[in-house]
């Protein structure tokens, strides 16, 4: 039952997690397309927004574009929730219910980008320089 955890206190606000996320999914450089978001509150508070795979977006989706993929299991013994880009109609219902506000709407594709835990090998965890992100098994 793996899950992604975060520790805001050791985050250094370098945005590497956002950037590597885009790189892992699309092979381009663009932190603004990360499926993880780091916020900065001046002068010294850093907040990380991660997907907790709660599934509320899937419940809210009117066309079932967000579906469970049982390939990897998360904390609640559900499969990871993924976005089927061919089905998404860009209505934005999922954004409204996202408890961590990590789901964002992207105008160029007219849909959100959804964290898929990199199917069990989260790159943001691998590349975080201070282990502010971890991958907890069990």
């Amino acid at each position: 039952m793996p899950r992604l955890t975060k520790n805001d206190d050791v985050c250094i606000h370098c945005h590497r997690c956002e950037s590597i996320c885009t790189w892992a999914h699309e092979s381009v450089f663009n932190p603004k397309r990360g499926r993880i978001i780091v916020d900065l509150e001046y002068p010294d508070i850093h907040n990380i927004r991660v997907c907790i795979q709660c599934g509320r977006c899937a419940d809210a989706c009117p066309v079932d574009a967000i579906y469970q993929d049982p390939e990897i299991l998360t904390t609640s013994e559900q499969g990871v929730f993924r976005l089927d880009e061919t089905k998404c109609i860009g209505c934005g219902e999922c954004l409204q219910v996202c408890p961590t506000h990590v789901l964002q709407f992207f105008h160029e594709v007219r849909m959100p980008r959804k964290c898929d835990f990199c199917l069990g090998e989260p790159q943001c965890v691998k590349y975080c320089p201070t282990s502010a992100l971890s991958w907890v098994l069990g």
Partner: protein
Amino acid sequence: MPGGYTSKILRIDLGNGSFSLEKPDDTVLRDYIGGEGLGTHYLYHEVAPGTDPLGPGNRIIFMTGPVTGTLAPTSGRHSVTTLSPLTGCQNTSHAGGYWGTQLKLAGYDGIIVQGQSKEPVYLLIDDGEPLLLDAKDIWGLDTFRTDAIIKDNHHDGKLSITSIGPAGENLVKYASIQNDRQRSAARGGPGAVMGSKKLKAIAVRGTQSFSAADPEKYHESMDELLQSVKNNVLTGSIFPKFGMAGIIDAINSHGVLPTRNNQSGTFNQAHKLSGQTMAKTMLTRTRGCYCCNIHCTRLINIPFGPYHGTRGKGPDYDAIVALGSQCDNSNLEAAAHANMLCDQYGLDPVTTGETISWAMELFERGIINRNDTRGIDLTFGNHEAMVSMIPKIATRMEFGALLADGPTAAAKHIGEKTAQYTMEVKNMNLPGVDARGSNATALSYAVDNRGGDDLRPFAVMTECLGFRSKDLAMPEQFEPLSGKENIEWLIPAQNYSVAVNSLVCCMLTIIGYSIEPSQYAKHLSALTGFNYDKDHLLLAGERIWNLQRAFNIREGFTRDDDRLPARLTNEPAPTGPAKGSTIHLEPMLDTYYQARGWDRNGIPTRERLRLLGLEHIARDL
């Protein structure tokens, strides 16, 4: 199109408020890489000799490099190139943070600003759309307020802003440009150039992507760079834990920590100023610039005492030396507060601290007194006096007005004999290393293309602390004091530094040679698609160095300007390992010029220029 670039440069003429787009040639990108190199290329071809640095003819060039905004360590940097009002040389300052990345995401490799606006304006680049906006309401505000108000105006807390403070508006010759509230392009006074153009700030945001030429190879070399940075003792351990100031004790033990306006090279209370002390007393957390795993930025909070309420970015090494040991001040809280004031008012903390320490020496020698300073007791160690001078310099008030034009101008005003105490080269104050304990540092101070500056390379780390590069030919044994050392090793190290400044990556990755030239060359090849190897990278560095030299020669600089302050060449160091030593510059200069392929007067020969592909500039010399 080569990878890593957007291949678009935005040109703004503030005289008529017009914008135009330019596409740099691929060969120019290959030869000058980006950042400092590309900035120098544009500056050389666009700023004619004799241009007034504070007039409409000067350019201020904000430039990113191919590595900016990518995943390599320290990729969050940008450079600011201009003709310096302080030195009259070409000048490139570098800043970290997030601004450079945002500019790249907005679709531009760089911005060239020319002309002069009549009214204060600020520039917004909104995902590629440039817009000049009225800045009357924010003119006069400090950089922190400016940052907050512009973010508020556009309802976007993630906007990245680089701005000048009151110092830049008042044309203080060492005013900085402050970005993201915490990082600054400071040395050489680019803030004054921005102030002269009445450009208060540049705010950017962007969402555009760019890519690497060979993603697989790129990923592999990026992993290698990250690992190298992690494995090095400086970048993997000391800088993340204690910041750049973590080396103060080591520098002091080698007798190269400048103290009391360079009167001495050791400071008996150095440990009180060190990064280790900062970590124990005021550090709240650390922060990295974009994608940086060194995270040297210190965030501090001083909850009690006379400097309570100081909360934000802490001082780094050069600022601590200038505002600490140089002013004989062992109070780290005072140095931190002074550094924050410099950030807020938009001043270069290094030149500010050193200028105040020069005034302190005059005060102690009785050359100036309380009548001159309007009642301020400018004795060494009086940190309250030091702190109180900073707003006065930024706003050109009282005694500050005299110091605001730099040490040489002030010395002319006070009296020619005070010039012997100004610790500057080409009118730029010497930063945090006392050159009497390190010959290579002395030489790099004398010949640097932007005046007294030791960052290209930070030679003391190699010569005194023994961090050597495997790829660059370096001697087995360094002799920082004897003067017998073969100083030629400095040349490839300089070329490498200026190449890395063009990528744009941080000097922290190369002062301990965490990353070797061959690694950067491999990385750059995978990113851009150009075929670089170690030699090509160093050649690009040499090309840029020579172009910078040519610019200065065209402005009238000669061998006579490659000199050191009299104190370093005549007065033996009084204490420490370097006790009794002075610098013999002339023989070193001869060796250096010859090894560089320059003539006896320091002018690049036609032959050398031809090798570098710069024959077209030979006629300018």
